């Protein structure tokens, strides 16, 4: 089911876009570790080319009718024929543009943010690795290939979260992220292997066609869909594997912006959209996805209500926004999910990068502390942040508004109103927590120390370098703000672009009534207002309504005890339970029995040695006796 014949230009662009970052990764690791500037140049150069290539590809193929596939067979082992190559369709054209744009911006931003770090080269190497893996992931033609890069993306996430490896919490968070996503990936792995065993082909185009799955029983289809969804749960930090993402904020902020909000975690959602026709063939699985999306969205929103850490607030909001996307996709709103993915990548990266500016300057993550130190005086980041938060809350005319509208629209066509209600609650909570943060930052509370000390002590001294850094860091903010503002208006062309491929497969987008839009907007405004009342207005105590209910507060700040549960699982069940049991079994039972046998042999030898004093004559006597007895025996 290969679409149009491949074009040489496309292929060249694809290869350039994917392989150059990999080349720069290797080059940095092998050759230029000692030269940070050169490393950064290599990395940014390669990502720039990737960006240009992807935009060119998008432009060239904007009128794409059927997906294009370039593939070769990587391993041609018997019983294992897996195509390896590129697939080009609207979804991944959009995705590579998003990925390369954010990668480019973040890498530029990092020039300022990471300046002077001893691991500067390493940072750019890992960034290139990530770019390569993420681009290739988006362009994968088969599930196996996708899994391949899926894991590599996880690896770069691990390496980047634990980038400051001397910090215990960072390495811990990296490990946690890797292991938790791994747990999901294992499900994914089993899922696609099962699928492979039953269909004999892992090509995405093939899986998405109805004909390929005709011979498979629905229950099996549901099973494999659920298993593959396990990978999505892990990667996109959905319930129940959601706790790694907030911890992943231990990494450098640009990393959080790139991997843990805009692109990598969105890979899960991307996979969902990628296999959307496949998933939608199993209604049971779809409703499970919808439920999981909803649960994660609500849980994460509540966690965001009480966090004091600026990055964690955004991390929770990332989870909840990803939940939104999965809800939308689960509800059948393909365009809504993908569009929200796109807009979210823009504004969430923006929010993180703004926070990064604050953190870089004031070296704290605590929002109250930032506010006290005078974060609001930094104009560009602050304005961008407000824009981003507004987009996040779904206020018009920013991009988030349009995508949220679309999501509400797709939720509203569901027969059961529960999902829509949950979505609306989510909208309200989102608006509330984002503006809670904004208002706290804008208005230092009266209880806080006087804001008269706009101290940024560490960086005031060397002005020129500082200026450069500031500019380099401000540029992406401005670009992203612009994107946030205007992206919403591209909803219709994008819908056509994406819808073209979907209608081609007979899955029409759904149209919705208009009242949910109104309700969502109203609730968003309500959320902002509540935040204003509690935090923004003059004389506000800056105490949220959740803070007043201690048990709820504790529940939320303990992340619904999910982390405790995993901690318990790992410490008690795995470490002190199974592991210790196995270890003791190894030492005591297996080794013990072997040593016992050995010692028994030695001991019995000793006993026998005691019987015969080692005197040669006794042995001779024994020999003789035996001979005689043998003679007797043979004689009779």
């Amino acid at each position, binding site marked *: 089911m290969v679409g149009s014949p491949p074009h040489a230009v496309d292929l060249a662009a694809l290869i350039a876009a994917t392989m150059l970052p990999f080349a720069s990764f290797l080059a940095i690791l092998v050759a230029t570790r000692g030269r940070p500037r050169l490393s950064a140049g290599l990395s940014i150069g390669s990502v720039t080319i990737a960006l240009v290539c992807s935009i060119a590809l998008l432009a060239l193929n904007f009128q794409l009718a059927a997906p294009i596939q370039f593939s070769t067979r990587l391993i041609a082992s018997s019983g294992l024929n897996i195509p390896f190559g590129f697939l080009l369709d609207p979804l991944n054209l959009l995705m590579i543009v998003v990925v390369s744009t954010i990668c480019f911006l973040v890498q530029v931003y990092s020039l300022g943010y990471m300046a002077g770090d001893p691991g500067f080269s390493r940072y750019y190497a890992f960034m290139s690795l990530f770019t390569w893996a993420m681009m290739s992931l988006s362009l994968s033609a088969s599930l196996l290939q996708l899994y391949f890069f899926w894991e590599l993306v996880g690896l770069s996430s691990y390496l980047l979260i634990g980038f400051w490896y001397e910090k215990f919490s960072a390495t811990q968070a990296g490990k946690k992220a890797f292991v938790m996503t791994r747990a999901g990936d294992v499900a994914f792995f089993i899922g696609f292997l099962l699928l492979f065993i039953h269909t004999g082909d892992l090509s995405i185009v093939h899986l998405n066609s109805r004909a390929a799955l005709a011979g498979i029983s629905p229950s099996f289809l549901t099973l494999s869909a659920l298993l593959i969804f396990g990978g999505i749960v892990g990667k996109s930090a959905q319930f129940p594997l959601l706790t790694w993402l907030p911890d992943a904020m231990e990494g450098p902020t640009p990393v959080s912006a790139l991997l843990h909000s805009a692109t990598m975690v969105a890979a899960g959602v991307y996979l969902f959209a990628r296999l959307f026709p496949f998933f939608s063939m199993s209604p049971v699985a779809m409703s499970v996805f919808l439920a999981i999306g909803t649960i994660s969205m609500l849980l994460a929103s509540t966690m965001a209500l009480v966090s004091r850490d600026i990055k964690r607030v955004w991390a929770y909001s990332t989870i909840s926004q990803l939940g939104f996307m999965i809800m939308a996709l689960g509800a059948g709103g393909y365009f809504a999910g993908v569009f929200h993915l796109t807009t979210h990548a823009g504004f969430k990266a923006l929010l993180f990068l703004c926070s990064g500016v604050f953190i870089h300057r004031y070296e704290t993550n605590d929002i109250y502390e930032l506010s006290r130190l005078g974060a609001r005086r930094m104009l560009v980041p602050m304005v961008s942040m407000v824009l981003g938060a507004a987009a996040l809350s779904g206020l018009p005319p920013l991009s988030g508004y349009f995508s949220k509208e679309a999501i509400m629209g797709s939720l509203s066509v569901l027969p059961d109103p529960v999902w829509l209600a949950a979505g609306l609650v989510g909208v309200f909570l989102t608006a509330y927590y984002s503006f809670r943060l904004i208002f706290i930052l804008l208005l230092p509370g009266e209880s806080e120390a006087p804001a008269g000390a706009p101290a940024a002590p560490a960086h005031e001294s060397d002005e020129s370098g500082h200026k450069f850094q500031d500019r380099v860091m401000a540029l992406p903010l401005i670009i992203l703000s612009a994107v946030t503002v205007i992206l919403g208006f591209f909803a219709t062309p994008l819908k056509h672009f994406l819808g073209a491929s979907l209608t081609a497969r007979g899955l029409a987008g759904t149209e919705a009534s208009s009242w949910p839009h109104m309700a969502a907007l109203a609730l968003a405004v309500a959320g902002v207002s509540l935040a204003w009342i509690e935090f923004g207005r003059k004389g506000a105590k800056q105490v949220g309504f959740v803070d007043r209910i201690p048990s709820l507060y504790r529940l939320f700040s303990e992340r619904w005890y999910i982390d405790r549960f995993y901690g318990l699982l790992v410490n008690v069940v795995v470490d002190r339970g199974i592991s210790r049991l196995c270890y003791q079994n190894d030492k005591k039972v297996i080794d013990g029995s072997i040593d016992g046998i050995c010692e028994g042999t030695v001991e019995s030898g000793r006993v026998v040695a005691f019987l015969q004093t080692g005197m040669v*004559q*006794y042995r001779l*006597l024994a020999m*003789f*006796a035996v*001979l*005689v007895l043998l*003679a*007797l025996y043979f*004689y009779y």
Partner: protein
Amino acid sequence: MTLYGILFYLISAAVIAATAMAITRKNLVHAVVYLIISFFGTAMLFYLFGAPLLAALEVIIYAGAIMVLFLFVVMMLRAESSHESVFPPIQWLPAAFFCLIYVLVATAMSVRTPGMNVPLKMLTASPRQFAVYVFEYHWFSIEVVSILLLLALIGALNLGAGKDAGSDGEPTDYNTDPAGEPPAAAGSGQPGRRSNRHGVEDEK
């Protein structure tokens, strides 16, 4: 019963008696001397059985060389009468018991096996016949045996030289015997072996 038969029984009785005396002597020199008598008797048996060459060799090597070697060692080490309890009951009682059974079984077996009671013929293998036979059919074994003897020579030399080598290698941990002994010990081994070797080679 022929004269030869009577001779056989007489000689056998003498051999057994001498051996019995030999193994019960406390004084080792006596034991060795009794054994020499026993070997002389054996040589006569050989002659009786038509093996004159072997009889001669028996006298030369066994009674001559080997027993003299024993005597050398016994005398050199002044071990004529050791302090041993000659027959500790824990050893000799079972030994005697089993020996008795053995002899009984052996007797019963050899008497009752058919074809064993035919009197032996009188035949003699002259040394020439014997030598021709040996070197025609068993020349390789002779070579092997000569290598064995050579190895024994080397081994005994090495063991005998142990004390001289001890001064450079391991510390002298054994007792302070007179220094004159080791060469004597080495010397005691050599002539015996040499004569053995010569004894064999002479026959060629």
